[in-house]
C-alpha cells in the first residue's frame, strides 16, 4: 500500500469503518510513513475540534428516537464523526434535528415546511443538482427517493427551474425542486404519499409571511413554499397541477 491508497482510506480508517485486511495494510504503511501518520493525527484532531466547536441542535422530544430507531442496529458500533455544515448530507440530518417542535398530528406542520424553506436559503444548501433541464434534474433523484419526481421548467411563464436537492420533511426524504421568480426562491417539496391516505385536497395558507400550498396528485404529495405574493404562487400551483401531458 502506498501513500495515495492510504490517503483514500485514512478517513474510514479513523472512523473504524475499514475491513480487517485494509486496517492491517494501513497500519503497516503508517508504521513506516511519517506523512500519512501526520495526516491521521490531523484527522483525529479535526474530529475533536468538530465535536467541541461545531454547533449542535437539540431535537424535539421523540423525533430523534423515531428517526434513529429506524436506522440503528442492536449491536454496539464505534463512534463516528461526520458532521459538516456545508454538506447536504449533514444538512439533511441537521435539518431534521433542527426542526422546530412538531405539533402532535401525523403530518408535518406548516412551521416545519417554512423552516425547511428558510434553511435551504443558507449558502450552499439550496441545490445539489444545478440545472434548468428537467432531463438532468429528474434522473438525479433516482436512487435518492423512492418515487418518480415529475420535473418541469416554467421559464416561459417566469418560474425558472434552478435545480434540486434532497431534503427531509416529517422524518422522511422529500425531493426539493427549486424555482426562481425574479429574485425570489420557491421550494417545491415532492414526496411519496403515505399508502392508504387517499390523497388530500388542495390547501393554501400563509405562515409568518410565507405562502404555502399543499396538495396530492397521482400518489405524490406536493408542498410549495415561498415568499412571493399569493396570486403568483397560485399561478405556479396551477401550472404544476395542469395535466397537459407535456412531461
Amino acid at each position: 500500500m502506498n501513500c495515495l491508497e492510504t490517503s483514500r482510506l485514512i478517513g474510514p480508517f479513523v472512523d473504524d469503518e475499514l475491513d480487517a485486511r485494509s486496517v492491517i495494510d494501513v497500519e503497516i504503511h503508517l508504521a513506516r510513513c511519517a506523512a500519512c501518520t501526520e495526516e491521521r493525527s490531523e484527522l483525529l484532531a479535526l474530529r475533536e475540534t468538530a465535536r467541541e466547536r461545531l454547533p449542535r441542535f437539540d431535537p424535539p422530544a421523540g423525533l430523534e428516537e423515531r428517526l434513529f430507531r429506524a436506522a440503528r442496529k442492536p449491536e454496539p458500533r464505534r463512534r463516528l464523526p461526520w458532521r459538516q455544515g456545508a454538506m447536504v448530507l449533514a444538512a439533511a440530518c441537521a435539518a431534521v434535528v433542527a426542526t422546530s417542535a412538531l405539533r402532535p398530528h401525523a403530518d408535518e406542520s406548516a412551521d416545519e415546511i417554512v423552516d425547511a424553506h428558510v434553511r435551504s436559503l443558507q449558502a450552499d444548501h439550496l441545490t445539489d443538482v444545478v440545472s434548468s433541464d428537467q432531463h438532468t434534474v429528474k434522473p438525479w433523484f433516482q436512487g435518492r427517493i423512492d418515487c418518480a419526481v415529475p420535473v418541469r421548467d416554467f421559464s416561459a411563464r417566469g418560474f425558472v427551474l434552478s435545480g434540486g436537492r434532497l431534503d427531509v420533511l416529517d422524518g422522511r426524504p422529500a425531493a426539493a425542486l427549486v424555482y426562481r421568480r425574479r429574485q425570489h426562491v420557491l421550494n417545491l417539496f415532492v414526496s411519496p404519499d403515505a399508502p392508504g391516505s387517499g390523497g388530500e385536497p388542495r390547501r393554501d395558507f400563509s405562515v409568518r409571511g410565507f405562502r404555502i400550498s399543499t396538495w396530492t396528485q397521482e400518489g405524490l404529495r406536493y408542498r410549495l413554499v415561498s415568499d412571493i405574493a399569493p396570486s403568483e404562487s397560485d399561478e405556479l400551483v396551477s401550472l404544476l397541477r395542469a395535466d397537459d401531458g407535456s412531461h
Partner: protein
Amino acid sequence: MEGLAYKEIADVASVPLGTVMSRLSRARAQLRILIAGQRRRETA
C-alpha cells in the same frame, strides 16, 4: 458526532453508502481548509 455508522447515515438520509463516504471525504477536506484559513487569520 451522533455515533452513527456509515451504513446508518445512509439509511437515515436515504442515500447510497458510496455517497456517504464521498461526502464525508469532501467534508473533511473542506473543514480542513476552513480551519487552516481560520488559523491563519487568528495568528496574522
